[in-house]
């Protein structure tokens, strides 16, 4: 079982600065929990490209294509009506429907992708058991660190204290 050390801070700047120093001291930054997005946290938890926007694009285009397909097929082959001498496939007049539902399609795909990638809904997680976690949705910033393999838990804790951290707790 991995044992983690959790340090808490009162400001976003402090947590980032400490995370950088801890990383230099060979701790592994596992995650940062915060009451609002901390700019710059991406460098610790993988700030690379995400597929979310690609999913949204694909979802949006697929729904829009389906909508246009229904229009074109029903108006040209399933039940063609000549109305005011306009062409059967009046594409400019057919645009609003695919456009609006396509945007909703992108939003919905994005929402599903967001849930899958963030692992939600998940009503329980080990971090919830951590004492003081409830403050991270309010006003505290938690930094979860994995100590270097060479150190014992006590040493690792002592080292963090020397680096100026207070309020260090173990988490399994």
């Amino acid at each position: 079982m991995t044992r983690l050390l959790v340090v808490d801070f009162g400001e976003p700047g402090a947590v980032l600065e400490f995370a950088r120093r801890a990383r230099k001291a060979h701790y592994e930054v596992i995650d940062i929990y915060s009451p609002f997005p901390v700019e710059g946290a991406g460098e610790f938890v993988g700030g690379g490209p995400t597929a979310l926007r690609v999913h949204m694009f694909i979802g949006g285009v697929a729904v829009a294509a389906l909508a246009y397909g229904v229009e074109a097929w029903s108006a040209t082959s399933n039940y063609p009506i000549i109305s005011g001498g306009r062409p059967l496939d009046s594409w400019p007049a057919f645009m609003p429907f695919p456009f609006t539902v396509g945007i909703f399609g992108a939003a919905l795909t994005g929402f599903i992708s967001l849930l899958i990638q963030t692992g939600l809904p998940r009503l329980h997680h080990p971090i919830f058991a951590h004492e003081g976690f409830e403050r991270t949705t309010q006003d505290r910033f938690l930094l979860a660190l994995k100590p270097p393999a060479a150190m014992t838990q006590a040493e690792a804790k002592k080292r963090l204290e020397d680096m100026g951290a207070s309020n260090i707790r173990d988490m399994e």
Partner: protein
Amino acid sequence: MNDTPRSIASQDERWVLPQGRSYETITDLVSAPLLERQRWSWRAWRIAFVASLLLTGLMLVSASWLLAQGIGVWGVNTTVVWGFAIANYVWWIGIGNAGTLISAMLLLMRQHWRASINRFAEAMTLFAAGIAGLFPILHLGRPLYFYWLTPYPNTMALWPQWRSALIWDFWAILSYILFSILFWYVGLIPDFACLRDRARSEKSRSRFGALALGWRGSARQWRLYHIYHMTMACLGVPLVVSLHSVVGLDFAASLMPGWSETIFPPYFVVGAMYSGFAMVVVLAAAVRWGFRLQAIITIDHFDVMAKIMLAASMIMSASYLTEWFAAWYGGDPNERSLVRFEFLGDYRVLYYLMLFCNCVVAQAFWARAARRSILAVVIVAILINIGMWLERITIVWNTLSHDYAASMWRVFHPTFWDYSLMFGSLGLFALLYLTLCRMAPIVSIHETRHLLSLEKQT
């Protein structure tokens, strides 16, 4: 030389006032009405709730009477077929537009002050767009067949007429409402998590816990949340613009004098933003007073919203001028005759009142004192809303009362049932809003905290 940096600007120029300057106070200010109800006197809320319940009852009665008797109970006649219903629809959808427009556009423009107002503007959107959607259905004459607008395999082997503006409308509103629900709900997830963690009773903990979906606020989740939120904002702006443009096309795609104008789609979008901002101001004043949020919704917010209304007022005035100019310059006798009818015809009083409310009143905002008086801003905002309602009324009535064939000219006289449905819909809106106030945070807690953190850095 004035080299005073922003950092030592006086406290009252900040978005979050000193009494709200810690993460905990912000959280407490917004969550207390939801979690510690006994700390609050709900008297004003109860009075408003009963009043809106009565109005909603009136709406139910008038809608039932309408369904039982048909649209003949309204003042509509063979000439003015749209009457109140479509004007109310456009008015409500305009207000419904503004929430997402404000929220998404200000997000993309990195206007961080939006944190204090975006949440209740988004909620306003949901309810206003939902109510707007009721009017065309009630106006159908045979409302039970409204689902014929959807494409589904049926025994008649028929499909919707895709070239019809009515179909565009249906999909635009439907997509917009669903989109707005997602945008609003995703923004609420971190706040529900906050309420879950603050709740003391088991009941509210499980309720908010379920709504929060297990949100942990980890860096990875925040990052994805942020990307999704920004992308939604990028999609939201064109969706909103297309929605009200489609509403404008309901008119512009016709061949009627005064409607068949290429300016209609953008002119409707600006009108929507105008009336929507005015409604947001009214709600902001109410929420600020009702929930004692003076520290979070500051005078500066009213000031900046007043400036936006002033700008929108100028664009509206320019649109009216363009309409008159185009009618004169185009030289079409019917168009010219319509403009004459607007100024001199049966509805001239409404038209002058509309011009006064939409073009003149907002000019008060050139004065800093007017922008910084909440009472003045609210009064102007209410007048703007009345003006925008009159605008939709005069667009519908003038054209229909004065089209090509003089033998068909008729005047619209609203009946009791026209008024009762309209005021009833205001009651329904208030009822939904008051209910929401007790179920979800009315201001975005995490975004306001973020705003505070940005202010602390400067």
